């Protein structure tokens, strides 16, 4: 009987020393494939880079437009503010023009509440004081009338609407505390009544003098009574 061996082991032994030569032309194919893959990779890189750049540009354009919108809106609000300031300046200029002319404007100072002025009491007090008193009374009435108008029409919102008509009609403007104040460059005379806490002022000295005179007369009359 012939010696038998496992076929697998025999084949393995036989092939261990086997070496077959490959075709060198395979390298050309490998080189070509490698270059093609490199090119593809490069193209993919450029595509990615391009798309990233495009996104960046789009983003930048968007941001630029967005900032433009913000700037425009800011400018608009600034223009509005400027127009408001211009309106106020116009009003002030017109006031100063009107105040440069001789006037009989009586100013009610800021610490005086115009609403507290009791016109009827004043009228009662002054009715008996003759013609001078009636002149004063008229001027006081005028002041109250002007103040009321200024309260109604010269509210900041009304002023901001650019109503120059209101500005012309009145000699007063509204300060930050919504208290009507008359601006004038002329010399102002003040009178303070300690009894009722009312303060009056006028550019016409005669008016103040007459009020003082009336009050003094009143006191004198009291003295005479006593």
């Amino acid at each position: 009987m012939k010696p038998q061996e496992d076929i697998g082991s025999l084949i393995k032994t036989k092939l261990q020393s086997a070496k077959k030569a490959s075709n060198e032309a395979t390298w050309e194919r490998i080189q070509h494939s490698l270059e093609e893959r490199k090119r593809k990779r490069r193209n993919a890189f450029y595509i990615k880079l391009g798309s990233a750049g495009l996104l960046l540009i789009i983003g930048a354009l968007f941001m630029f437009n967005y900032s433009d919108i913000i700037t425009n809106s800011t400018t608009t609000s600034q223009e509005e503010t400027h127009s408001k300031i211009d309106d106020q300046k116009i009003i002030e200029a017109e006031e100063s023009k009107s105040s440069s002319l001789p006037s009989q404007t009586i100013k009610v100072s800021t610490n005086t509440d115009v609403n507290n002025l009791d016109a009827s009491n004043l009228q009662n007090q002054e009715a008996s004081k003759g013609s001078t008193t009636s002149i004063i009374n008229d001027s006081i009435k005028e002041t109250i009338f002007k103040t009321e108008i200024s309260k109604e029409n010269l509210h900041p919102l009304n002023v901001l609407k650019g109503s120059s008509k209101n500005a012309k009609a009145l000699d007063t403007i509204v300060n930050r505390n919504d208290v009507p104040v008359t601006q004038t460059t002329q010399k102002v005379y003040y009178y303070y009544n300690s009894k009722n806490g009312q303060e009056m002022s006028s550019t016409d000295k005669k008016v103040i003098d007459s009020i003082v005179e009336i009050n003094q007369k009143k006191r004198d009359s009291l003295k005479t009574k006593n």
Partner: protein
Amino acid sequence: MEKTELIARCKKNDLVAQKLLFLKYKDLVYTTSLKYCRNSAEAEDNVHDVFIVLFETIHKYTNKGSFEGWIKRITIHKAVDKFRQKKTTDLPYQIESDTREVTIDKKDIDIPIDAIFKAIQELPERYRLVFNLYQLDEYSHKEIATMLSISEGTSKSNFHRAKQILKEKILVFSSTKILNQ
């Protein structure tokens, strides 16, 4: 040029070094491919694919294991991948797991290497892979089963059947040779 230097230059995509590496290891890859492929043309294709993978993944090689072993593993896995892609169903369904030894007279196998290669290449796809993996490259049946998505029993059975076919082919070749003499 030393092997480590060659590998280092290949990692930098140096084309000259790549060619030198190819010339150095092409025969090893080709010989391994011949065992796993059906013919020399398919083996050449496998060599091409193996070197492409090798140059693209050479940066993963950390000089720890044998570089030849690493190349051989790539070659085997490439061949297995091709088998998976084909999804061949050329094998009859087998239930029995015959693991009996298939023996042959030592004189009968005294045939040219090309004849042995031819006998292996003519094996059905899966038999060839199982025989090569288990017998020539010393993979376990468990590993083969995982690689080829088959059971361990099927791997053993395929291996036994491959040896039987090889025996028949070698005996035919041997008898023809004797007749020619």
